[in-house]
Each structure stands twice: as structure tokens, then as C-alpha cells.
């Protein structure tokens, strides 16, 4: 017996996957939440706060995923993604914009190749569609210029113990992604238990995810600090085992700079410096960016401005 899976995953039948995933060490919920709560008490001040705010801005996937999205809305958001604070050239761009598949072309035209364009795919957010539809959804988004795909796992398959269905689906989507990076959304708010989150993380990483992502933002709870800590432990252990670094994206429910800094502290003290880059850690958010900008302006000017001093897109 060993703590981490010792062998490469060769048997991807449902029985093989089950043995593999159920061999992972369990998670004690009380202990996990206590650790996250302790890390949340870190006090980040002055120059470290300024650094953390800029780093957080550069890690944002600026997102709009609404039925009422229009090309106009997406173009405006793209402009903001490139220059979050039009009054200050030193403010970094965000990492990516994240949109539904039909708006990828608009987004790509607006941002060029200056930042990434992420498309949600595979019948986001429920994932309830046929495999053909999911593949088509992904292919189309990549063809239209998305270089990042945010797919959802089949939670129904996962929760019913049909691990191979969830696994095969991720592997198939990865295949059609080509060079596009694949972010796999676990929708932890529907997986419910931390043991499930750990298993789903390993399932996604083994199946070819470049990133594992907490949530769609359409289910409550979305990202939480303990869940993100747990997923960071999973990518840390996966690197120990395989040498490959997988990214983590915390999405939904992160609204304040204070929250964002807490996530960065958890990244720093769980996986360390190597993950403190937009290549390996992202925030999926919309309203977070403005709070980061307000805090940034306060640190620059020495006083708070107000919501009319940042743009609404």
C-alpha cells in the first residue's frame, strides 16, 4: 500500500479506474477546512499586497456566460480584458476572455493574439448532450479561434460510478482540442464530497486535462477555498508522480481582492512559486476584476475612489 497511485494508469476499463480512484487516500473534511481557514488568516500587506493584486489580475479569465450575451457585450468585455484600467498603463491584461462557443469569433477578432480566448464547450453547463454534440461543440470552438476549451465532466456518469464514461469523454475531447488547452470543469458543487473531488481531479488529470477547474459558476457553491486547496494537493501529487504540472482554475463566487489574495496564499503554501503564474493558476470571474482594480487604485493613490472610477464591462 502506498499513499499515491504507484503504477501508471494502464487499465482504463471501469473496473481499472474504480480500483485506481478508490485507492487514493481519503480526505478528512474537518481537517481540510481547518487548514484552509488557517491559511485564510495570513495577513498580506503593502508591497506583497500590490504584487498579489497585479498577479491576480493577470490570472483572471474575464467571463461572460449569459443567455443575453451579444457581440457588443463581448467586444466591450474584450476591450476591458486588454486594458483593465484605462487610466494606468502599468496595469496588466487579464489572462483570457471566456465566452460561449458562438461568440468565439467575435472575441478572437477583438483580442487578436494578445490574450487567450477560452470557450466553454461540451453542452456547458450541464453536460447533458450526446457525445457527437459535445465533440462538434468543441471542434467548432477551436476552429473559430479558441485556444482554451473549458469542458464539463459528465457528473451523472461520475456519480453513478461509470468512471470510464467520464474518462473516455475527457480523452476524446482532448483529442479534438488539438493545440488548444483543455480545462476540465469538475463542478465540485455537484460532486458534494471531498473524496469525490479528489477522485474527479485524478480522473481528469489522467484523461489528459491541462487544467482542472472547480465550477461552471452556475451551481452553488462554486469555488471554495477548501475545494481549491484539495485540487492543488491533487496537482502537486500528480506532479510528484508524473513530473507534469497541471493547472488549477478557481471559478465562481470569488468577488473580492481579499478573497483572491487568500487563494494566492493557498497556492503559494500548497504548490509553491511554480504555480504562481497564469499558465498554471486562473480565476474564473467577472465582478472580481473591478474590486482588484479598485484596490489597485487605492494602493496607488492612497485613497478609495468608487465604482464609477472603474469600467462596468
Amino acid at each position, binding site marked *: 500500500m502506498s499513499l499515491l497511485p504507484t503504477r501508471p494508469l494502464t487499465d482504463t476499463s471501469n473496473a481499472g479506474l474504480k480500483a485506481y480512484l478508490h485507492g487514493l487516500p481519503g480526505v*478528512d473534511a*474537518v481537517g481540510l477546512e481547518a487548514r484552509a481557514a488557517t491559511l485564510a488568516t495570513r495577513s498580506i500587506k503593502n508591497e506583497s499586497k500590490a*504584487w498579489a493584486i497585479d498577479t491576480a489580475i493577470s490570472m483572471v479569465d474575464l467571463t461572460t456566460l449569459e443567455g443575453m450575451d451579444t457581440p457588443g457585450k463581448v467586444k466591450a468585455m474584450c476591450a476591458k480584458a486588454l486594458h483593465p484600467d484605462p487610466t494606468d498603463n502599468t496595469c496588466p491584461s487579464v489572462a483570457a476572455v471566456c465566452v460561449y462557443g458562438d461568440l468565439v469569433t467575435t472575441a478572437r477578432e477583438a483580442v487578436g493574439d494578445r490574450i487567450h480566448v477560452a470557450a466553454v464547450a461540451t453542452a456547458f453547463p450541464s453536460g447533458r448532450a450526446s457525445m457527437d454534440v459535445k465533440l462538434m461543440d468543441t471542434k467548432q470552438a477551436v476552429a473559430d479561434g479558441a485556444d482554451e476549451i473549458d469542458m464539463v465532466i459528465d457528473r451523472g456518469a461520475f456519480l453513478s460510478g461509470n468512471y470510464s464514461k467520464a474518462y473516455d469523454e475527457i480523452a476524446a475531447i482532448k483529442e479534438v482540442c488539438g493545440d488548444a488547452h483543455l480545462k476540465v470543469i469538475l463542478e465540485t458543487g455537484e460532486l458534494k464530497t471531498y473524496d469525490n473531488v479528489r477522485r474527479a481531479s485524478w480522473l481528469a488529470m489522467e484523461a489528459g486535462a491541462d487544467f482542472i477547474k472547480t465550477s461552471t459558476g452556475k451551481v452553488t457553491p462554486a469555488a471554495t477555498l477548501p475545494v481549491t486547496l484539495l485540487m492543488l*494537493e491533487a496537482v502537486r501529487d500528480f506532479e510528484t508522480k508524473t513530473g507534469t504540472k497541471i493547472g488549477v482554475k478557481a471559478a465562481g463566487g470569488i468577488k473580492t481582492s481579499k478573497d483572491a489574495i487568500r487563494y494566492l496564499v493557498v497556492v503559494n503554501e500548497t504548490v509553491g512559486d511554480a504555480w*504562481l503564474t497564469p499558465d498554471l493558476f486562473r480565476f474564473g470571474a467577472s465582478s472580481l476584476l473591478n474590486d482588484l482594480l479598485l484596490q489597485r487604485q487605492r494602493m496607488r493613490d492612497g485613497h478609495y475612489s468608487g465604482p464609477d472610477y472603474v469600467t462596468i464591462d
Partner: protein
Amino acid sequence: MTFEYAPAPESRSVVDIDSSYGLFINGEFVEPASNTFLKTINPATEEVLSEVAEAGKADVDAAVQAARKAYNKTWSKMAGKDRAKYIFRIARLIQERSRELAVLETLDNGKPIRESRDVDIPLVAAHFFYHAGWADKLEFAGYGPDPKSLGVAAQVIPWNFPLLMLAWKIAPALACGNTVVLKPAETTPLTALAFADICQQADLPPGVVNIITGAGETGRMLVEHPDVNKVAFTGSTEVGKAIQRAVAGTDKKLTLELGGKAANIVFDDAPVDQAIEGIVNGIYFNQGHVCCAGSRLLLQESIAEEVIDALKRRLGTLRLGDPLDKNTDIGAINSRMQLNKIEELTKSGEDEGAERWSPNCPIPDKGFWFPPTVFTNVTQAHRIAREEIFGPVLSVLTFRTPEEAVEKANNTPFGLSTGIWTDKGSRILWMANKVRSGIVWANTFNRFDPTSPFGGYKESGFGREGGVQGLGAYLHVEDPS
């Protein structure tokens, strides 16, 4: 990119330390008849914080007399619901002054502000709240229809959790209707003196609580005083034995909470990331100055290597330094004397062939410091596996079967606490019945709560503090433990 945390020190301006303190006897601060004083220093900087009286024989007499008078005239006659009002008032004042008390504790003791702020002081208030609730309900505690108080309690407490140990002693004593003479440790008297101020603020009748400062000799005179009815001591096993000898043949009721050498046992099905946190919290919390510290890590041999690697990785993230910095995890060792003891025992560990490891962490120039340390290749025969180090030093041993884990856990003269890490509930219950220790933690470590009795087996002492069981130590009843 590197995420450096800028210094985030808690402000010292919330505390106001006098240059000199007298003794708190009969509700007021008085100059000591002994006219001698001790200095108390900040162990993180060696700066002198204040000087406090060293109580002599006449002072101890005066304090016991004041307590006796308050017992006879006021406190023993007061209705429980009225005692409760005073204790509730003290609890609320502690909450109101929590920031000040946390900073003072950190200055005098060296523990990180994160711990004094988030653990010590909230627990202090919780102990007073909990026991205030008992004061008018003692007839329902299971000690008979009308349990009686004992009289004057002589209480001597250690330096590792200065105000918390005071709370563990004073709260149940007052709730049960006793009066108190308490002596804090010589290196950490300041929060006890702040507590004296809180007693004044709460209008506690004079003499119900008396605080006398001093060193070992003062403590000896106090526990040997012929007019005390109860002796309660928390501290080293050596001093505990001396007290028990001194009290033998008298009718004083005695409780002792002494040393420990707890086993923290990790099975191969443990929730490993949380177990690592539990190991760290078990031995590096409060610089290992914890009687129930998980100083012996027992690892199932099949996972030992992986757990040790993960533990070392985690220790690399611990932040040692200024105890007042809100991001500090490991503070200062409380005294030069304690540092010398830790150094002596760790040297014996190396001499006896155990393998020593510490993370690469810079040590401040001034003050008393010891890096978090792990010894591997330790056997039951090593001194570091048998003697209490009372510092941030972990001895790692291995076992093969649950039976062997129990045998090794019990193979110590102490018996205060045990930690068990496994996903299997039935094994937790089986182990808890087999290990001879007063406290068993399952998938956690160093959790304290006023409702839960705390105390030891064997050389870890006897009697319980906290919970309904703890009340028995301050009432005329057969000790239920």
C-alpha cells in the same frame, strides 16, 4: 515568481505594561513584604518587559488569609446564580480585552500572535463562560443533591499557556464556590496580573482571587501552606512528584496535570494531507511547549517514507520569527533554560544514532529560538523517544500492525494524549479502548474545549480539568475519574 509576505506585525500599542508589579492580594495590588522582585523578559528579543514581586512567606500567608476570609464571609455563602454573574462578567471582559491579552501573552511567552489571538484567548473566555453556566446548576452535575465547595485552592500553573492555564484553574474553582490563590510561572506572569485587573474591573469581592508572583520557592510555600484545602498543579512530573510528597498525609485534595510523551499514530489508510497537518499541529504548535504534544510519531511502516517526505515538504513552509507578526507560525522558545534543555536532549538524539533534520529556516540573532526538528530512525530505547522534550522536536518511529502500535504507544511512563489517524471508524474505537491516555484524538490533534475533560494516566497526573468531570476536583465528592 515569488510571493514574499511583507511584515505584518500586530501593534504593541494596545498593551500598557507597568515597570513594576506588586502582588494582588485581597482585591488590590500591594508591595511584597519580601521586597524582592524578578524580571520578566520577552523571549523573542530578551528585552526586559517588567519586574514582578517575588512573594515570600509573609506574602503567601497574607494571600491565603485573604482567600480564607473571602471564602468564609462572602463567596461560600453567595448563591450560585450570583457567583455566575461575576464569572460571566469576567468572561465578557476577557472577550472585550482579547486583543490586549493576546499581545501581552505573545510578548511575555514568545508564542505567535496567530495562536494567542485565535486559540489561547478565545478558549480562556470559553472556559469562563462554560463554568459560569455551572455555578447555579451544581446540584445537577451528578455529585449529589447539594455538593459543597472545598475552601481555599492553591493553584500553580506553567508558562506554556499562561492565561489559559489560569482559566482552567480559576473558572471551575470559582464556579464551585472556592476562593483562590494562584501563582503564575516566573517567566510568564503578565497576563495573570492583567487578569487581576479584570477581577477588579468585574467588582469581584476582594480576596476571592489572589495572584501572587514568584518562582519555585513561592510555589512550594503556597502548596505546603497549612490553611489551603485544595492543591492544583500543572507542570513538570518532577515538581508534581515533590508536591504529591508534600501533600501526602494532609487532607488537601490534589490534582496534578503533568508531562506527556504522546503517540500520534498514522495508519496506511489515513487521510494523509490532514494527517500531515495534524502532525505539524501536534508537535510544532506553541513551539512544542504543550504537555499533550504529539512528540512521538508512529507511522505504519508501509507508508513511512512517503509521509516523512510529505512532512518535510510541509515543514519547509513554516514561518519562524517575530511572534507579533500575524504570519508567524513558530515563535520563540520561552526561556534560555528551556532552550538549553531542548538542545541537550536533541544532542542526545544525535549521539544515540537518530537522524536529525530541520528545514532551512533563518534564526533571528537575538532571543531564544529552535528550528522545527524531525528525528528519524528513532527506537523506543532512545532518550528522545522516552523523555519529554517540551520543544519543537518530533521523534519518528514505525510499526507494522495495530497491536504493535498500541504496545508502542503505551510503552511510556506517561499517559496524557494519543492521536489516531485512520479512515476506519471501528479501528478508532478499538484503539481508543486500548491506549492508556486521558485524551484520544481521532483524525485531529490538540483540540481543546471547556466541555471536554482533560487529564492523564500514570506519570501524566490525575484528576480532570474541564467538563462535568472537572467540577469534581473542586467539590467535596469522590473523584469520578
